């Protein structure tokens, strides 16, 4: 067995990667659509249930479930974006409450369809790394997926295809005056971000129980990450997520498991009170 502390820190890295996976989509919605999307966790849950439904039919691989979950969530997200988010966008508070209502509606629907009892997908054995380190499969998948997803996002945002997104994030009026179809880009972005959340839910589904409310905790953590990191620094989202994951596990190890979440949020509050503009400004990368 590997040194326990090393194992705990490695697990923290994996947990942080899971936060990053959620935060990527959340950042997109915040930046481009400018909506606090409280239904993001519901799409995470949807992805997990899709993975469960496939596992029930003998397709147990979450990697196989992720594209299907993403496709379904994209369709739902586009529908939601077009029918609700775009028309109500001028009333941010109503919009936020609306996304919350959708999240609660989804939770209730999931409870009706699948019941309140936790469901579970069979977890595959972990890989054993050097020195007996346990490499949890879902953790490795989360790490690689979040790195790829955020790397891809960074590339898109910094390259020509991402120009409309950056422009809309900066000034919608200019984007409109340049002939961009802002409305369409907005709801497609919303759908794409929902797809990311659902893919994350599918990929991480074997790590725990699948329940109607399982998306709440990752939603809050991804909100925290995006608040601190902002949309315009994808690397900051990734690094902050990893840092929070490791910090949470380190606090659980050195203090108490019951204090890890509190310590994590306290660290974020301290950071925000010291640097309200977030860590990107801290590094001097915000304009």
């Amino acid at each position, binding site marked *: 067995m590997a040194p326990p502390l090393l194992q705990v820190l490695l697990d923290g890295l994996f947990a942080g990667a899971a936060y990053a996976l959620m935060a990527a989509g959340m950042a997109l919605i915040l930046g481009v659509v*400018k909506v606090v999307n409280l239904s993001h966790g519901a799409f995470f849950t949807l992805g997990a249930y899709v993975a469960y439904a496939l596992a029930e039919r003998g397709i147990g691989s979450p990697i196989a479930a992720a594209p299907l979950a993403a496709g379904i969530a994209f369709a739902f997200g586009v529908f939601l974006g077009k029918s609700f988010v775009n028309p109500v966008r001028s009333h941010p508070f109503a919009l936020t409450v609306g996304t*919350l209502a959708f999240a609660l509606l989804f939770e209730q629907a999931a409870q009706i369809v699948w019941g*309140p*009892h*936790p469901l*579970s997908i069979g977890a595959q054995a972990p890989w054993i790394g050097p020195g007996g380190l*346990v490499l949890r499969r879902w953790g490795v998948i989360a790490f690689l997926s979040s790195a790829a997803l955020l790397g891809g996002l960074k590339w898109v945002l910094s390259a020509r295809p991402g120009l409309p997104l950056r422009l809309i994030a900066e000034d919608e009026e200019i984007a409109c005056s340049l002939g961009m179809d802002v409305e369409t880009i907005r709801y497609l972005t919303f759908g794409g971000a929902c797809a990311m959340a659902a893919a994350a839910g599918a990929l991480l589904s074997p*790590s725990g129980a699948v329940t109607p*409310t399982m998306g709440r905790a990752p939603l809050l953590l991804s909100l925290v990450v995006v608040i601190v990191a902002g949309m*315009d620094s994808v690397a900051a989202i990734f690094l902050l997520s990893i840092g929070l994951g490791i910090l949470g596990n380190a606090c659980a190890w050195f203090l108490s498991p019951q204090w890890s979440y509190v310590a994590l949020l306290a660290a974020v509050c301290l950071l925000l009170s010291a640097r309200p503009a977030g860590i990107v400004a801290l590094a001097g990368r915000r304009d």
Partner: protein
Amino acid sequence: MTVDSGPLLRLPRILIGSAALFLSLSSPVFFAAPCVAAGSSDTLKIGVLAPLSGPYAAGGTSFAQAATLAVEQANAEGGVSGQRVTIVVGDTQGRVDVAKTEALRLVSREKVSALVGAYLSEETVGVMEVAAAERMVLIVPVAATAEITDKVRQEYDRYRYVFRVGYSLPQWAERIAAFLSDRNVARYAFVGAGIRWNLELGETLERIAAPRGITPVYTAFYSPGNPAFDTVAVAAAAASPDIVILADPGRNSVSFLKRLRETAPTLPALSIGGALGDARLAASVPLSAPVYVQAAAWRGVSPAATAYVELYEHRYGAPPVGYSDTLPYDAVTVLVAAWRKAGSVESAVVVPVLERGAFPGVAGTYRFDAAHQALWGSGPGALQGTFLRWERGGARIVFPSPPTVH
């Protein structure tokens, strides 16, 4: 090109407000479930208090389903003096304040004749006050804190309406210690959700197991809302126990056990609190080492238990977990039997009947001691409960030794 982050930087205030709104709106009030049934004037109502939403919704739903089944069974046997029995369910949401409010609603508005519940110890202690104030019989199925029976013992006149069919913490610890001894366990790790009965059970088990030479080598509790599974699993395995006792009645049980299996695939685990009595969950956990579950009753323990399991499975499509469903079923069964024996639902008449009578249920025959605690243990006439081990294809009873089938 640089991006003006001004609009983005203005978002945190909205975010924080929205997050606060989310937290408050996603609280129990939003999930309040309507009552399940309303009886007419010729029916007797039992108020059932269970968390139908929140982190313990699964257990609470099983609780309400089992109570429903017990009432249906009672009505099939003729009800009480020709009157039908119905239940009215109050959703406690796992919160003390809501549990008390719901108990008051059931008593004052729904006019129930007795209460069954609640689920968590914290909730139940709150509901006890309502039962005492209203002088109404309260049957406690699963809440295990010593405070419940201590209050009955210390302030009998006020709390004499409260009876517990589930095991008390010392009884529970004694059963676990007996099982550990049977498995030749000398060192155990005790982990679980940081809720009241767990904290108290951990301490009680340490005290009761010590004379048998069984000691804890690691104890930790995680936050039910955002549990630090990884750290607890790694630390528990690093302490090299013979077994990990997982005390969690909620959805986190299976998540933690998966982490434990990844960390220490050959370390046995004992689940208490009922969650891993669910065959669907157990099927998703690697059985590279034994997974034991403690239950109040299980298929094959007795003809009554087998009949109950088959009835439950037929009605709800999945077998009971043997704890958060079986004990509420027995709570309602005991209450109805007491009403029948008393020929009345008046608390003043029913309490002496409950104190002196013997009431058959799924887990055995219930008798109450002076503190109104059902007798669980290894002595003659006591309810024993059971321990089973999950294997491919189902569960096998391992302790106490299963009865020989003829």
